[in-house]
């Protein structure tokens, strides 16, 4: 009796796991176009000797495309009532469909987390029935993880456009981060590609969350016992390269999100062709990865380096240079500010020197208190001087490049440095 029972259990486990493996492959595959995988910015501590904390972002693995895997990023289901042209789960697409139960998502999250595979859960979903019905399921999973499993790891929930304020409020109590994807940089593009969706439905949960977060942070200052509410804030994502917006339009929109909605992050997702729809780039069109990278560089300049949007792009220069980074472009347009004396200039100006990042700038400012710095010191600090040397003076250097015209200087830098994108530009370079 006993042995038969045992065999039965093992066979069941294997069948169960086969089905789970298939479900996981469908629902992870459908979620992967959401590029956010950040797990930092929260400060959730482990409490009551429970499981996990969400204090520091860790990338536990990297896929073969080089992207970080920090969270278990899955859809609850890829059944969807919408038909957005750019989305692999659109109603009219002939793909396998699957759905997890609440318990299955909880078990996967906990068991992956205990093995140190992940920092937590990123849960999104296709829209089934309606927005509130879908949002309620997502919230139920987060609630179960927090209250029943005593789980303090990172949870990122999608706020479903059109979901009610009550559900968003509950989501904020359990999740570290919430995000609503605006999908397209402009309303026209959204109308063209996602006729069932309406931009207002996306912006209103964002506004609600912004205010709820501000209110929560204010309460927290007065009452220490105020519960956490989305401690890692909210983010959004725009698909890049599916529609004809300029970098100025995209970055202007991002800047609005940072300034008006207090978003922590805007993600730019280079469109991966997945459809033969003639409104979209054809299958086989390369993913605009360089452009995506330049947009992130510009985004960083706005958020961390003190650059204003109109210093990076403006109506006269609406597109980012693809062959050089946006900081170098800015410097070449503003040669009157250089050379900068690294032994005297403010930190803010040193951070603006092409090739010098924030940590290096800080190191320079700290070290120059002890002795006057030379180029040799900078080299030893590990600063790559191929770009920076054209924009600085320090002890023992004379400003040699001042006679060069910005265009000549750009060519000189391109020729003397190795860019990972060089193969993409080499045919053009040969023309000069």
């Amino acid at each position, binding site marked *: 009796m006993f042995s038969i029972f045992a065999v039965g259990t093992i066979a069941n486990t294997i069948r169960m796991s086969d089905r789970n*493996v298939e479900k996981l492959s469908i629902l992870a595959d459908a979620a992967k176009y959401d590029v956010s995988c950040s797990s930092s910015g929260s400060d959730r501590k482990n409490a009551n000797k429970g*499981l*996990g904390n969400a204090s520091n972002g860790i990338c536990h*693995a990297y896929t073969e495309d080089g992207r970080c895997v920090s969270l278990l990023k899955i859809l609850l289901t890829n059944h969807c009532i919408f038909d957005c042209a750019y989305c692999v789960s659109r109603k009219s697409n002939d793909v396998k469909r699957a759905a997890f139960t609440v318990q299955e998502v909880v078990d996967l999250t906990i068991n992956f987390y205990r*093995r140190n595979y992940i920092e937590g859960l990123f849960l999104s979903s296709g829209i089934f029935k309606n927005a509130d019905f879908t949002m309620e399921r997502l919230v139920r999973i987060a609630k179960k993880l927090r209250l029943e499993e005593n789980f303090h790891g990172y949870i990122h929930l999608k706020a479903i456009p059109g979901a009610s304020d009550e559900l968003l409020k509950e989501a904020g109590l359990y999740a570290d981060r919430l995000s609503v994807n605006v999908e397209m940089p402009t309303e026209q593009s959204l109308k063209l590609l996602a006729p069932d969706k309406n931009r207002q439905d996306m912006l209103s949960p964002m506004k609600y969350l912004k205010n709820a977060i501000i209110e929560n942070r204010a309460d927290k200052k007065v009452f220490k016992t105020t519960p956490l509410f989305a401690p890692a804030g909210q983010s959004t994502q725009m698909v890049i390269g599916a529609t004809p917006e300029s970098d100025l339009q995209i970055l202007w929109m991002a800047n609005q999100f940072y300034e008006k909605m207090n978003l922590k992050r805007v993600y730019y997702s280079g469109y991966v062709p997945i459809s033969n729809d003639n409104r979209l780039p054809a299958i086989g069109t390369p993913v605009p990865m360089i452009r995506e990278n330049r947009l992130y560089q510009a985004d960083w300049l706005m958020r961390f380096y003190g650059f204003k949007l109109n210093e990076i792009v403006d109506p006269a220069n609406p597109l980012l240079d693809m062959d050089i980074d946006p900081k170098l472009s800015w410097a070449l347009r503003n040669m009157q500010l250089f050379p900068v004396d690294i032994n005297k200039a403010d930190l803010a100006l040193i951070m603006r020197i092409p090739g010098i990042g924030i940590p290096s700038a800080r190191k320079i400012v700290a070290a120059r208190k002890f002795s006057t710095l030379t180029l040799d010191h900078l080299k030893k600090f590990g600063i790559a001087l191929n770009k920076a040397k054209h924009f600085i003076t320090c002890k023992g250097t004379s400003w040699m490049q001042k006679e060069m015209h910005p265009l000549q200087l750009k060519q000189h830098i391109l020729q003397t440095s190795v860019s990972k994108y060089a193969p993409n530009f080499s045919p053009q370079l040969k023309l000069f």
Partner: protein
Amino acid sequence: MTNIIYDGSFEGLLTAVFEAYEYKFEQVKIVLQKHFQPSPFDKEHRCITDERKAERVWKGLKQKLSAAACAQLYKAFLSEDAGIENTLLQYIQHAFSHPQSIESDFSHPAVLLVSRTAKKVYREKHRMEAFIRFQLVKDNLYYAICQPDFNVLPLIEKHFKDRYADQRWLIFDSYRKYGIYYDLTEVNNVEFTFSEDSSTDDASSAWHESEEMYQVLWQQYFSSVNIAARKNTKLHVQHMPKRYWKYLPEKKAGSKDF
């Protein structure tokens, strides 16, 4: 030249620094006991680890330097790099000879080297926090094997204790032959000896019945989240160097692609 020979512990190193001052040696070199080779031209001084002497040096450093700089010294020590003892000695001498902290005097070679060494040890600590993979074995123990480039177990202990407070776990450094074990109350160092034929690397015979299923699910997840149209092997290998692959279940299954 006087060779000060110490036992390889951090307290031992601090004792050696203390004695370099105490005996007013002119030129000193601190040497690890197991690497020491007597030379007819050098004097030798055997240093016996003395907690009080070590404590005095450490206290002195804490008064001169920020807590972060003191932590840097310890991290640099854990690199086990050849000669790091003498870099640390130069750093400490430089610190004690100045009234204010010299920790950001990066134009001084020892300060720069300590800062860089500490950084690379920190990176390895961070990688271990990322790449440790527990396997659930019978007895509900979460077991992980690793071979870090530097001796970082003392640095990752707190992270794992805070995070996995409700599960018993053991992280074993199979290169340095010791581990850290959390018994739901505290973390202790444990040492093992394995017989020649029992391998520490393969724990599959001791797996809990659910272990294989979750490894398969994880492997499936790892391959499903990849976007083939964005393949970038160079970046992948840069972030996940191949030397770590043998303890990563997701790379054991996927390594056939390379």
